[in-house]
């Protein structure tokens, strides 16, 4: 990893600073008569990372889209920064989303825009000045080690590079909350490790709040048992087989929460489903 650059901190906060950054209360949603998520309740406090594990099709991505207000729940209440997003107008919701960075499963880069324009999209929309934009784009691309790809288009990038550009796009305005939808999905183990290291760097260096969805147990284990060493600019295992206190693991089964707790609790769980899942 290269030297860490200073990405500007958010110059404004939103909602209630004492409230959890994300809060789900008895949230349910279904499509075409089928329940996808049932009675989901959890919270993510400032600086906390919630890793949502589960097999494919158990509603993990839907949960992230609900958290960002991209879809509305059939029942229950979702709060972001203490604001009830079900009751917000579309305009207010768009403003609120500027405090949230989302990395999509397939990157969802704008394929007709260059890497530079993709990364700077949010700043361009805000009408920031050219000098600021150029500086921050370079900082973010340096963060994900993709400075050399600034003029390329998404179809010229590999899957891992696209995922890194998506991370750079999400962090450009240093939002208060990150939503990662399977950031390592479909990537080889080495590229996956690089992506997880970037997620960890974001978590430990900037102490940002995050929800991370994955079906890879290895990602959850690495994030829970490692921390980012800024001095050496690489991730390292936490001493004495410790776990990160701000990382919580949540396991979904058929749209319901089957487990919530730390990695240690997960490994000690006697629940047959969890044991089967870990096997």
């Amino acid at each position, binding site marked *: 990893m290269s030297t860490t650059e200073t990405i500007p901190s958010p110059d404004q906060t939103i909602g209630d600073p004492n409230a959890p950054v994300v809060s789900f209360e008895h949230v349910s949603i279904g499509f075409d008569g089928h329940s996808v998520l049932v009675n989901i309740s959890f919270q993510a406090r400032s600086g906390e990372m919630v890793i949502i594990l589960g097999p494919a099709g158990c509603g993990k991505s839907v949960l992230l889209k609900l958290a*960002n207000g991209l879809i509305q729940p059939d029942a229950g209440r979702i709060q972001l920064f203490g604001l009830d997003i079900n009751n917000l107008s579309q305009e207010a919701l768009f403003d609120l*989303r500027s405090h949230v960075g989302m990395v*999509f499963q397939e990157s969802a*880069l704008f*394929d007709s825009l260059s890497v530079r324009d993709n990364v700077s999209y*949010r700043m361009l929309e805000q009408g920031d000045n050219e000098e600021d934009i150029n500086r921050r784009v370079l900082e973010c691309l340096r963060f994900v080690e993709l400075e050399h790809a600034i003029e390329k288009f998404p179809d010229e990038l590999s899957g891992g590079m696209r995922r890194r550009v998506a991370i750079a796009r999400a962090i450009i305005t240093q939002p208060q909350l990150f939503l990662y939808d399977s950031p390592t999905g479909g990537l080889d183990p080495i590229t996956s490790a690089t992506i997880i290291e970037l997620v960890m760097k974001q978590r430990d260096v900037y102490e940002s709040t995050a929800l991370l969805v994955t079906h890879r147990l290895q990602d959850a284990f690495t994030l829970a048992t490692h921390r980012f060493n800024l001095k050496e600019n690489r991730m390292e295992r936490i001493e004495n087989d410790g776990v990160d206190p701000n990382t919580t693991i949540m396991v979904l089964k058929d749209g319901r929460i089957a487990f919530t707790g730390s990695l240690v609790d997960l490994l000690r769980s006697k629940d047959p489903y969890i044991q089967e899942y870990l096997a």
Partner: protein
Amino acid sequence: MEIGEFLREKVLAVQEYSLLSWTAITNVFRRPFYWVDLYTQADLIGVGSVPIVILTGFFTGGVLALNSATTLAQFGAKAVTGQLVSLSMVKELGPVLTGLMVSGRNASGMASELGSMQVTEQIDAMRALGTDPLKKLVTPRIISTVVMLVFLTIISDALGVAGGGWISSGLGINASQYFHMAYQTLEYPDVLEGLVKPLIFGFIIASVGCSFGMTTRGGTQGVGRSTTQAVVVSSVLIIFSDFLISRLTISIFGR
């Protein structure tokens, strides 16, 4: 699929289309306004369609003159060819054919572009980045199609009358007489009808194209389906609304 389910789906699709259209219209009065996107779309839709509109208008006017002059000659009324060509072009064929050509070119383009963005989560990404896709993608397309279709129709009308004149002169009709008849026969209600139609057709093309694009499901196959449906639906709606506008104009102006 049960008939109840089928009807429910259709009603939901109409509701979704109406909501999208209404929001896109009201967005005209809300900030931010995407001027760059508006100019880009106006260039793509308007300037980009000029060649096909010129060719269609010119040859339609020509074939109209060819057929009418031959028929009218049997009654010794070949001289009124200009009148027939100009009325047909300005009131009906200019707006309808331009609408259909632009529909084939741009409703499909909008449906496939927005459909591809939808299935690759780019629309969701745009919303997640705090941009309203209806404001950025749909409203500029609707405004530019409505405005540009009016100008394209005027070009088509002019080229149609010119094409008719070119053929007529080949059939022995005096060019001055042709153009004099073509000009004299037009009255304000005819011109008004010919200019109101592209406003409605432009709205139909862009709103239907964008609506099918934004509601695309089912990967690349879904994009293909949306594209086809957008052209079919917008073309049928253009012809249907053409009938309604013509009927309305006749009941108001009597011609």
